[in-house]
């Protein structure tokens, strides 16, 4: 029974944390992009405009949600829900800090730890493709349809590269549990460098690029290329239904940054010092600092790079990222083999 209660508390905390994160994330993105473009950005609602997202959310809540005449209503209304739920589910396996001990009981700062964490993340995050496809198809309008088939093809293409980039990580750490992947990055290499999986540099770069494409972020935001296909798959959505796609997109951005931290940047590892309370809280601080650094990179790239063309996008995914990942898996498995088993002819 306590197990159920603990699970419920963790789920509620994770949910609240994600909602708060999205509010800050949307504001941070608008402010940072604004500063990079020599504008002010939203600065009226609350201190420095931090309540802008909440205000927007409230506004969308009270806006009319219209259903286009030709929409397939059941699928049309299911699509935004299908976008949000997988985004929440991915976060459930991300360890946000070291296990903490209160009153002799140890709690993991992770909603749940699965043995097959990596497979779970890949499987659940690709459920988001259903939301995109159904939203576009059920709207009964041509721009959403075009936007959704484009987005679906883009997401599944880069998912292959995303998965391939993780193979060396699993070879290196020998586990698919996210908590254990973080655990394995605890020590240091010779010379005091932290033993992060960042040493697998090509994997890191491929994962990051594929992550940009998976979350439909610039320079791969073809889904909402307004010159060609208006708003993409959510053209026909308004009010709260649109807000749900928006929410899902930003949760996915945070998830992708958190996963990059977990897989490559040592998760919550970092120097720990001070009195017990501070020492216990520091891992969470390190995790959030690393994740937000990646989030900042997402925003920075969006403010810097122009959108690629669709044929360039597909060519880059299939003709560059996937062959490079295959070669890199081959090289890393030979290198790891030499390190662990010696030379094959020795």
């Amino acid at each position, binding site marked *: 029974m306590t*197990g159920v209660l603990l*699970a419920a508390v*963790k*789920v509620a905390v994770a*949910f609240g944390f994600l909602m708060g994160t999205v509010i800050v994330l949307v504001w941070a993105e608008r402010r940072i992009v604004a500063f990079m473009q020599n504008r002010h950005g939203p600065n009226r609602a609350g201190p420095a405009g931090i309540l802008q997202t909440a205000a927007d959310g409230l506004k*969308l*809540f*009270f*806006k*009319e*949600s*219209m259903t*286009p*005449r030709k929409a397939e209503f059941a699928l049309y*209304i299911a699509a935004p*829900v299908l976008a*949000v*739920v997988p985004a*929440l*589910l991915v976060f459930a396996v991300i360890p946000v800090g070291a296990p903490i001990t209160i009153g002799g009981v140890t709690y993991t700062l992770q*909603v*749940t*730890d699965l*043995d097959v964490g990596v*497979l779970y993340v890949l499987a659940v995050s690709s459920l988001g493709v259903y939301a995109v496809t159904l939203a576009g198809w059920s*709207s009964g*309008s*041509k*721009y*959403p*349809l075009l936007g959704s*088939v484009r987005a*679906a*093809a883009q997401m*599944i293409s880069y*998912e*292959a590269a995303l*998965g*391939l980039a993780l*193979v060396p990580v*699993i*070879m290196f750490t*020998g586990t*698919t549990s996210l908590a254990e992947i973080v655990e394995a990055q605890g020590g240091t290499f010779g010379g005091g460098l932290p033993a992060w999986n960042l040493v697998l540099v090509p994997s890191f770069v491929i994962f990051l690029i594929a992550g940009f494409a998976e979350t439909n972020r610039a320079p791969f935001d073809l889904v909402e290329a307004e010159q060609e296909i*208006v708003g993409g798959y959510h053209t026909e959505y308004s*009010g*709260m*239904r649109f807000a*749900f796609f928006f929410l899902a997109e930003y949760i996915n951005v945070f998830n992708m940054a958190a996963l990059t931290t977990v897989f490559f940047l040592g998760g919550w590892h970092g120097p720990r010092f001070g009195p017990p309370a501070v020492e216990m809280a520091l891992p969470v601080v390190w995790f959030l600092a690393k994740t937000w650094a990646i989030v900042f990179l997402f925003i920075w790239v969006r403010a810097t790079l122009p959108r690629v063309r*669709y*044929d360039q996008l597909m*060519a880059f995914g*299939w*003709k560059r990222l*996937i*062959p490079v990942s*295959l070669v890199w898996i081959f090289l890393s*498995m030979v290198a790891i*083999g030499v390190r*662990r088993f010696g030379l094959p002819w020795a």
Partner: protein
Amino acid sequence: MTLADYLPIALMALLGLGFSVVTLWLSWKLAPNRPTAEKLAPYECGIVPLQEPAERFPVKFYLVAMLFVIFDVEIVFLFAWAVRMDEFGWAGIAAVGLFMALLGETLAYVWKRGALDWNVPYRRRYRRVVAEPLEEAA
């Protein structure tokens, strides 16, 4: 590791579903709802739509989906081996190397056949096929 590990995931899914359904329902109840014929028409940049949404779209998208399945299955096989890599030693690496070479060859074949090219004009892609019967006729 037991099925109990998946309980929080079920709870999270329920919470997400509940939140979505309640929010959408409340918003639908509280927001104004004044549909008009123009408002509910498919979006078309302000002009009267001339075409229905396409019922067919380029076959290239299906091709991408099929290629994705091939590579996704490869990834799943690689994951299974990568976790237990130490138990198989060099024999495992050789086997996986062969497996990857076969898939690399698949990719090379598909690439050479032009399945990864977008926006290639029909005439250029099928130049030989189209040109030959014409020469015969002449």
